[in-house]
């Protein structure tokens, strides 16, 4: 049984990136909270899950990914097109300090929501978690080449969609 101090340390170290990843995946704060709670409940109930784990971060991301995929499958029985809904739901980014920043972050959040789930996960882990393709591949249980190609496809889509806003911001004095 892990001590409460050990669990707190795990939470402080891994909960913030797990929260961002789950939010990117579920696009819903209530679901994100449920899944985060489920992860830490499992870790507390079965501490042996972490025995022999080399990369705790990759292991926890895999756990989060599997739980969120299950959740989305269940939810898809009630929502015909989850990905379309995702574009209109919770924003992924902190509020901007200027209107341009705010507009761009909203557009980026919508563009992320429009990506297929598998591409969105890779982009999130690469850009905002700074993981290598090898670690992403391990976490999502896919080949590293697949992770890299998903990333490239996703970045091309984001670039195409956000080009006007991005260029406006870059051209500002």
């Amino acid at each position, binding site marked *: 049984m892990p001590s*409460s101090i050990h669990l707190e340390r795990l939470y402080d170290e891994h909960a*913030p990136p797990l929260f961002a990843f789950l939010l990117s995946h579920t696009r819903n704060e209530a679901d994100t909270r449920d899944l985060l709670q489920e992860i830490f409940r499992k870790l507390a109930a079965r501490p042996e899950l972490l025995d022999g784990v080399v990369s705790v971060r990759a292991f926890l991301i895999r756990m989060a990914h599997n739980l969120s995929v299950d959740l989305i499958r269940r939810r898809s029985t009630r929502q015909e097109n989850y990905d379309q809904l995702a574009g209109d739901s919770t924003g992924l980014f902190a509020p901007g300090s200027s209107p341009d920043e705010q507009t761009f972050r909203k557009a980026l959040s919508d563009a992320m929501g429009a990506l297929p789930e598998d591409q969105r996960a890779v982009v999130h882990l690469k850009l*905002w978690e700074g993981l290598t393709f090898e670690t992403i591949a391990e976490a999502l249980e896919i080949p590293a080449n697949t992770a890299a190609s998903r990333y490239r496809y996703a970045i091309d889509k984001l670039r195409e969609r956000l080009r006007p806003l991005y260029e406006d911001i870059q051209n500002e004095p």
Partner: protein
Amino acid sequence: MNPDDFEKFLQRQPVKALPKEWRAEILAQAGKATDGQAPAGTDRNAQPWWHDLLWPCPEAWAGLACLWLVILGISLATPAAPPSRVIADLPPNSELIWKALKEERELMAELTGPQPLHAEPPKPRKQGPFSQGRSDTAMA
């Protein structure tokens, strides 16, 4: 647009922060799990075993079950007549058949006219060697 610049620009957009107030509650629920207690309240992931069976479309399964119940109810409410009674109401089969055959025979007789009771028997063929028969034909 330089691809690297674009990706770096995206990277600089800060993701939403984890709400601080979640920490105490999540850790408290996790602490209950170590005591063997089920988490209270918001856990929507635990599902009964039969949930997976009905998962793809529970409304359709429920509709099908209702339809079967309605059919069963109708079937029980309207008992069918026993087949033996239907058969007993009919006249005996053999009598009907004989009557039909007799009528058919009379009709055939009317259509074809009087027929000889016995056809003329075929003439007996002359017995003998095949070559003799052929010479008889040639002489004729």
